[in-house]
């Protein structure tokens, strides 16, 4: 005979949209922590396949969470935010995960034939650091958002979130400047090095600099949620 779920399991499901969003961010954060080491291994011409595997693992996990969220909001349960907003939010957040995965895969696909200048390497590393920082700050923002939700988005939470957004905006600006510098350097090599290598290098920078843009869109959405 079929055993039905206990009434409380139906009333308050274990997974909530906010929990799933937080779990999804956690996957992004975990994979971003691998980026610095991945670059270090790449520059020292060492094997990077294990990083790709780890990042792919987090990407798959994030995809499962995204599907779970879709399934959850498809059920006829009452949700505090509009379904469309949540779907859009998770879609943008998933783009960050995809960018990280694409970045790692791009590194794996092609080894640049020219020797990268130490200054360029340093710039690329600091770009990577700032991206990881912005993901970390974004994760904190999501945690504060969830805490805030449980306390009706009190004024101190609002103020703190605004501060977090300012910090993220600063980081975005920094990343933009760094990526522009790196882009300029890349194209300055066009007469000396292989064009494919230059495009490849430029794509790496574009992928990383996409992340803070997505985060910026997400922070706007978070503010919308808080005002909803």
């Amino acid at each position, binding site marked *: 005979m079929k055993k039905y779920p206990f009434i409380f399991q139906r*009333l*308050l499901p274990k997974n909530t949209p906010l929990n799933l969003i937080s779990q999804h961010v956690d996957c992004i954060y975990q994979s971003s922590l691998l980026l610095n080491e991945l670059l270090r291994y790449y520059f020292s011409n060492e094997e990077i396949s294990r990083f790709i595997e780890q990042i792919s693992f987090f990407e798959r996990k994030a995809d499962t969470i995204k599907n779970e969220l879709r399934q959850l909001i498809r059920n006829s349960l*009452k949700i505090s935010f509009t379904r469309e907003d949540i779907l859009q939010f998770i879609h943008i957040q998933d783009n960050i995960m995809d960018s990280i995965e694409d970045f790692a895969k791009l590194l794996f696909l092609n080894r640049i034939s020219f020797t990268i200048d130490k200054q360029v390497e340093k710039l690329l590393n600091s770009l990577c650091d700032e991206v990881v920082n912005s993901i970390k700050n974004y994760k904190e923002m999501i945690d504060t958002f969830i805490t805030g939700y449980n306390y009706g988005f009190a004024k101190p939470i609002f103020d703190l979130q605004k501060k977090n957004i300012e910090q993220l905006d600063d980081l975005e600006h920094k990343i933009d400047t760094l990526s522009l510098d790196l882009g300029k350097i890349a194209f300055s090599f066009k007469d000396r090095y292989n064009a494919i290598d230059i495009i490849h290098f430029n794509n790496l920078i574009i992928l990383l600099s996409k992340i803070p843009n997505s985060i910026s869109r997400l922070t706007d959405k978070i503010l919308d949620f808080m005002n909803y």
Partner: protein
Amino acid sequence: MMIYLIIIPLFLTILVCIFNGAKDGIFLLLPIFSNESTFIKYKNNKFIFLLPLIGEIVGATFLGEIVLRKIQYGFINTYSLSFNQLYICAIVILTVTLIIFFISSFLPFPISLSHTMIGGLIGAGLFFKLDIFFKNLISTTIVWTITPIFSLISGLILYKVILNFSLKNKKVLKITKITAIIYILSLYIFFLLIFLSKSKLAFYILLSFFSLLFLLFINRILFKKSQNINYSSNENDNLKIEYQKTEHIFSDLSLLILPNVFISHGANDVANSISLLSLLFLSLFKNKIYGNLNLYLLLIFSVILSLSIILNGSKKAEKISKDICKIESSKIFTSYYSLATSAILFSFFGYRISSVYTLTGSYIGIGYARGFSIFNSRLLFTLLISWFITFVISILLSYILFYITKFSGVFLWLSKI
């Protein structure tokens, strides 16, 4: 009739108490078990296990008789039943209750003891062609329908009050400490006023008990450094710590009002379980026992029921708590507050309500106040249908069992011994 035959309804009543305790214990303790900080306090301090026990005993002993009399004499004319008929009634209705308890584990909705018991009594009334007091029946069914809605509204309002007056404040921790005292005092005063109008002894017992709990709480929030949580340099973390400390206050509050929840439960469910046994005992031992027989029975069975809640209900609640979302202490407090006030108010007027339906109603109310990011609002409708189905099934089942009992010759056999 042989007196030793009383052992069968006695045994069935004990079983009903045990099953009811195990079933209701899950619902009543589940919120606590879903929240880690409240659960740790509950688990680590064995003294806290006394809270449901004391609440259940006080509620059943001092307020249970109102509900008991309503069930015994309020729905059918039990005065016109002979002892043998009463005996059959007790066995059939208690058996129906146990059968429905068993079936309920395979149904997608909970079963309420009062709906089953009153359904069984109506079945008896129909079978023995007794007077059925429709006025009381209609008012009770109205109460069954409005209590989840009442607790939904009270849960919604109370959560909004807590949110706006405590949690949303700039100085959240300081303000919560002050408002917490107001919340707990208002509930204690409400309960004391209810008991003052019923029994002075109960009033004094509760006054001393609540005073003790209140002083412990004051000592904890004002004078003790109860939480070893230190502030850090990160503003995000500090904000979380501030709210964590606020949550600790609400988890203390939730445990403090646990006796109130069980006072209401005891007043309702113990009276319900023993209503038929008490009628039999009254017929057998009237004027043979010193004092109020109902009071003795309520006291004994409240201990059985509360032990079942603590021993059986808590185990299952712990298991199920892993499959539901974490409920914040402020929401646990709101739901308990709403349940305790609704249940005690209706019990005061002699109406039997379902704790499970009331608690569910209050959670839906909190959900509507945007307390939960996701919840099942349709459950309230499911619950309304479920009480109707339970009620109708118990009428039919008891009628069929009475029919079988009559034609199998049990009535004849009873009249001979």
